[in-house]
């Protein structure tokens, strides 16, 4: 029987006395590619933090049936101080989980993995550069490398497509598509138009979580879910997103 990596059970959480999320149930399986959508302030990032163990719960449980999975986390671009004096090499190696975190030198195996990771992302030449000298896309790649260097079982990405050009976005999605063969992916985006074709399932977070077991969403479904999404509400909708689907 398939075993989920993570189970959220009746999670209620928030900041101070204000509830941001309630009654959240979710199971994440090893082959999942879940797109998390929802309005700003709906609790998308908070839900990610619950899974990462960064957000204390008011009630409910987070269960890891096979132990806490190795996670890779790409935070929102706004969380990163681009002027901080850290090099690409240092940034990426900070993703290596190690019990021996003292002493500045990496183990041989870790150095090898770092080299391999940088080469895979085409960042080898920039390894010794401070992150302040990178373009938006390059920095996002470096941050993704930091998330991937530990070979995670669960990759969590918070708005990876902000401040990057379209070309990088396409490259990113191809990369994620390949990565999904080896790991579960949870991708948060406000831009459902772009993520919908590539994710397998959609979770809509707006204080509560509504799980949609396919990547096809119609306006009706979003209305039922009470999950207003910018592109649906205000803009023209790429028809590939809004194909009519049969279980309606």
């Amino acid at each position, binding site marked *: 029987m398939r075993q989920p990596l993570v189970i959220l059970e009746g999670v209620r959480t928030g900041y*101070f006395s204000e509830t941001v999320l309630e009654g959240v149930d979710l199971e994440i399986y090893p082959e999942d590619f879940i797109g998390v959508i929802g309005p700003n302030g709906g609790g998308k990032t908070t839900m990610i*933090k619950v899974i*990462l*163990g*960064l957000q204390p719960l008011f009630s409910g449980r987070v269960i890891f049936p096979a132990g806490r999975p190795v*996670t890779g*986390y790409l*935070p929102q671009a706004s*969380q*990163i*101080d681009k002027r*901080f*004096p*850290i*090099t690409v090499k*240092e*940034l990426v*190696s*900070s*993703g*290596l*989980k190690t*019990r021996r*975190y*003292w*002493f*500045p030198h990496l183990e041989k195996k870790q150095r090898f993995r770092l080299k391999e990771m940088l080469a895979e992302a085409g960042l080898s030449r920039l390894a*010794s550069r*401070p992150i*302040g*000298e990178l373009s938006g896309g390059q920095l996002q790649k470096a941050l993704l490398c*930091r998330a991937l260097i*530990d070979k995670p079982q669960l990759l969590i990405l918070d708005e990876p497509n902000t401040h990057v050009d379209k070309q990088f976005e396409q490259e990113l999605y191809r990369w994620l598509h390949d990565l999904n063969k080896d790991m579960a992916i949870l991708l948060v985006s406000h831009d459902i138009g772009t993520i919908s074709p590539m994710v397998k399932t959609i979770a809509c977070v707006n204080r509560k979580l509504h799980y949609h077991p396919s990547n096809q969403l119609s306006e009706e479904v979003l209305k039922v879910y009470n999950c207003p999404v910018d592109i649906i509400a205000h803009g023209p909708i790429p028809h590939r997103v809004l194909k009519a689907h049969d279980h309606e």
Partner: protein
Amino acid sequence: MSDLLAIFEYQFFRHALAAAVLTSILAAMVGTYIVSRKIVFIGGGITHASFGGIGLAYYMGLNPFTGAAAFAVLTALGIEWISGKGKVREDSAIAILWSLGMAMGIIFVFMTPGYTPNLMSFLFGNILSVGKADLVMLLAFCLLLILFFAVFFRPVLYTAFDPEFAKTKGIPVSVFRYVMSVIMALAIVLSIRTVGIILVLSMFTVPQITAMLFTRNFARIMPLAALWGVTGSVIGLMASYILDIPTGAAIIFFLTFQFLFIRILMLLRDSFKRKKKMV
């Protein structure tokens, strides 16, 4: 020139020189952390709050630097705790502790009967009165700090850069944050002797931003900031002797002058390069 060399025969001057060098090294290491994390304002809060400890120690007849250290450490831990909990806005909390410390210091010094300690030397430093015991303490703390950074460089860097991510990788982030707070507080209090409460913050920021003109690599900023700190403070110390001006102020002036001088040289070099390209 022989006049200038003669000054080295005085023990107080040799002590002052050693204090300037050691304080620069100390401030270079801790200041790199402060500047990188953009927490200079926290440094200001710790510095000024420590004055409360100096006043209290005077009132109770204790060593003023013990009082300063106690107040500085408590303030630093308090600010770190507040910023972790987030119920009071951090900058407001710092401002409160900043002025409360100063107010308490003034009240206690005022209440101390009889002898009124020389306030000026705490506010503006008195490097010429540094004794052997002070130097030993500075040296010991410097060595301890070098060892600390050598061993824990990576977790300190990671927790300073992105604490949430560091947490997901199992680094005990709050432990490192609190330890760094204590280190900051002690480094600041030890440096007060050299340049005083009002000027000490520059020792923790100006050499760092000078170093950052050359590199944006945390590990390289530290030694380079130490170098600029040492040159600026030694020039300042000599100048204060020659021009007969207050030492602490002279050190800060030359640290800043050095920064501006290098910055202007760099700008000139860049414009020269651009012109050459155009030709």
